[in-house]
C-alpha cells in the first residue's frame, strides 16, 4: 500500500527528459525558474507556457499529472489571484461597486502572478516526476561536492537523504502498527482537545522512537559489515556522465532565457 511513497512522485520512464543527467535537470530547473520570473508581458508569457507543454510532451508525462501537481496548491492559487485582483492599484478602472475597484492593471497582475505560480509548480513537478529520488540525491551530492573543500558534508547529507527515503515507508507502516496495537488496548486518538490528543500520542511516539533507534543501530551495524567507512575512496555503480543531450538542452534553454530577456527589453 505504501509501495509508491518511497519513489515519491517518480514516474519511471525512458524519455529524453528521464535520461538527462540529474545535474543537468537541476540546472535546467534553475534556468526555467529564471525564465518564468523574467517574463513580464502577456504575449511573451506564451513562450514559457509553450515550453512547459513541450517538456510535458517530451517527458511523455500524461496531462493528468499537471492537474494533480496543482491540486494541493489550488487554494493558494485562488488566494493569490483574489488578493492581487483587489489590492493592486491602477488607473484604468473596469469595475466599481461601493469600496471595490477592479482595474485593468489589477487583472493583469492577478493573471501574471497566478500563471507564474502554475508554471513554477508544474515545471518543478516535472523534475520529481522524471527523476528518481536516488538520481536526484546523486545529482545533488555531485553538485555539492566542490563544497567539500569547505568541509561541507556533501556525502553525509546525500547518504542521510538516501536512508531517509528508504525508511520513510517502513516507519509509516510501523506507526500504523503501533497505533493499532494501542487502540486495541483502548487508546483513543480521536477525541478530546488538542492537548489531550497530543498527550494521547505518547503511547505511539515512545515505541516509535525506541524502534527507530533500534533500527538505526542495526542499520549502522549492517552498513559497517558491508565495509561502509564514509565517502572516502567510495565509488558509485551508477556514474553520472554528461551526454550530447545534456549540452543541447542546456544551450537551448539558456538561449530561450536570453531571447526572452531581449524580447522584454524591446519596445513592443
Amino acid at each position, binding site marked *: 500500500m505504501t509501495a509508491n511513497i518511497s519513489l515519491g512522485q517518480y514516474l519511471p520512464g525512458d524519455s529524453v527528459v528521464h535520461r538527462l543527467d540529474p545535474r543537468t535537470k537541476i540546472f535546467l530547473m534553475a534556468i526555467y525558474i529564471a525564465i518564468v520570473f523574467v517574463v513580464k508581458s502577456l504575449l511573451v508569457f506564451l513562450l514559457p507556457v509553450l515550453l512547459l507543454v513541450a517538456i510535458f510532451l517530451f517527458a511523455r508525462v500524461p496531462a493528468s499529472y499537471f492537474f494533480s501537481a496543482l491540486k494541493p496548491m489550488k487554494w493558494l492559487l485562488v488566494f493569490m489571484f483574489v488578493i492581487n485582483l483587489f489590492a493592486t492599484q491602477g488607473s484604468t478602472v473596469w469595475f466599481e461597486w461601493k469600496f471595490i475597484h477592479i482595474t485593468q492593471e489589477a487583472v493583469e497582475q492577478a493573471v501574471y502572478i497566478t500563471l507564474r505560480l502554475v508554471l513554477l509548480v508544474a515545471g518543478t513537478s516535472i523534475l520529481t516526476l522524471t527523476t528518481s529520488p536516488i538520481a536526484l540525491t546523486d545529482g545533488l551530492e555531485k553538485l555539492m561536492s566542490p563544497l567539500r573543500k569547505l568541509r561541507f558534508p556533501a556525502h553525509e547529507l546525500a547518504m542521510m537523504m538516501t536512508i531517509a527515503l528508504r525508511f520513510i515507508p517502513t516507519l509509516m507502516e510501523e506507526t500504523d502498527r503501533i497505533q493499532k*496495537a*494501542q*487502540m*486495541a*488496548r*483502548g487508546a*483513543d486518538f480521536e477525541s478530546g482537545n488538542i492537548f489531550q490528543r497530543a498527550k494521547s500520542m505518547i503511547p505511539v511516539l515512545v*515505541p516509535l522512537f525506541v524502534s527507530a533507534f533500534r533500527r538505526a543501530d542495526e542499520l549502522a551495524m549492517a552498513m559497517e559489515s558491508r565495509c561502509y567507512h564514509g565517502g572516502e575512496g567510495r565509488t558509485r555503480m551508477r556514474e553520472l556522465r554528461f551526454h550530447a543531450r545534456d549540452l543541447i538542452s542546456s544551450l537551448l534553454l539558456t538561449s530561450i532565457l536570453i531571447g526572452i530577456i531581449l524580447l522584454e527589453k524591446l519596445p513592443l
Partner: protein
Amino acid sequence: MPIIIEQLSHTYLPGSQLAYPALGDVSLTVQDGEFLGIIGHTGSGKSTLIQHLNGLLLPTVGSVLVDGLDTREKKLRKQIRSLVGMVFQYPEYQLFEETVERDVAFGPKNMGLSEEEVAPRVEEALRLVGLNPSEFSEKSPFELSGGEKRRAALAGILAMRPKYLVLDEPMAGLDPLGRREILALIESLRLDYGTGIVMVSHSMDDVAMFADRIAVLDKGSLFMVGSPEDVFSHSAELLDMGLNLPQATQLVRALRERGIEIQKDYFRMEELALDLIGRWNHDR
C-alpha cells in the same frame, strides 16, 4: 455469545487506483471458549481478518458482531475492544511506560476503571504471564529480556480481562522453551478462565496440537473451516496454497508414498507413534 462474522469483505483504499481487495465473503463464527486456529500463506488475508474482530478495521461489506455488538457502531467500540484482546506480532514493540506496572495498567485505565480496580488486575495479569509482581512491577519495560518483554506486553492485554484473545504469531522469535511457555499460558487461559482463543500461526504443529477448529484462508477467501482432522486430510490442497503440514502429517504422506497404508490422517506425533508401534507389535 459468540463472535459472528457474516459475509465479510474488505477492500483497502476503496475507490482509488490502488484499491486492493484483501478479503472476500468470509463467514465464520468464533464460539465461546473455543480455540480457533487461523492458517494461511502470507497475504492470504489473515491479519485483515483478525483486525475486524475488535473493530480496528471495519467491513467494506458484511458485518462482524461481537456478543451481539456491531463493530461498525462507533460508541460500542470501546466495549468491543475490552471484550476482544488483541496481541499483535512482536507485542513487545508497543511497550511505552516508565514501569511495567504502569504499562500493564494502560488498557484497564482506558476502560475507565478506578485505581482500586486496576491494581489487582495488573497484579493478576503479571502473575499469569509468570512475571513476579514484586520483582517486575517497578522495573522499566525496556530493561527486560526479550522473552520477559513479550510476557509483559501480553500481561497488558490480559489485564483487560478479555473474553476473547486474538493472537498473531505469539511465539515468533522465541526459543523452543520460550515457545512452550507461551503456549502453556494460552492453554491455561482457556482452561482456567474460559477465554476464547483465536491464534494465527505459521506453525502447523502448534495449531494442530491446540486448536479445536482451524480456519484456512487462501487469497482472501475462506477455503475451509473444520477440525484439525478435517483440515489436515486436505494435505494436497494445503501444500498447493504454499502451506506446510504438521510434521506427523508429513511423515504419513512420506510413508504412503512408499507404499505403507495408513488409514488415519494423523496430525499429532504421539498418535502416529502409537500407530507405528502398534503395527510393529501386531506384525510380530
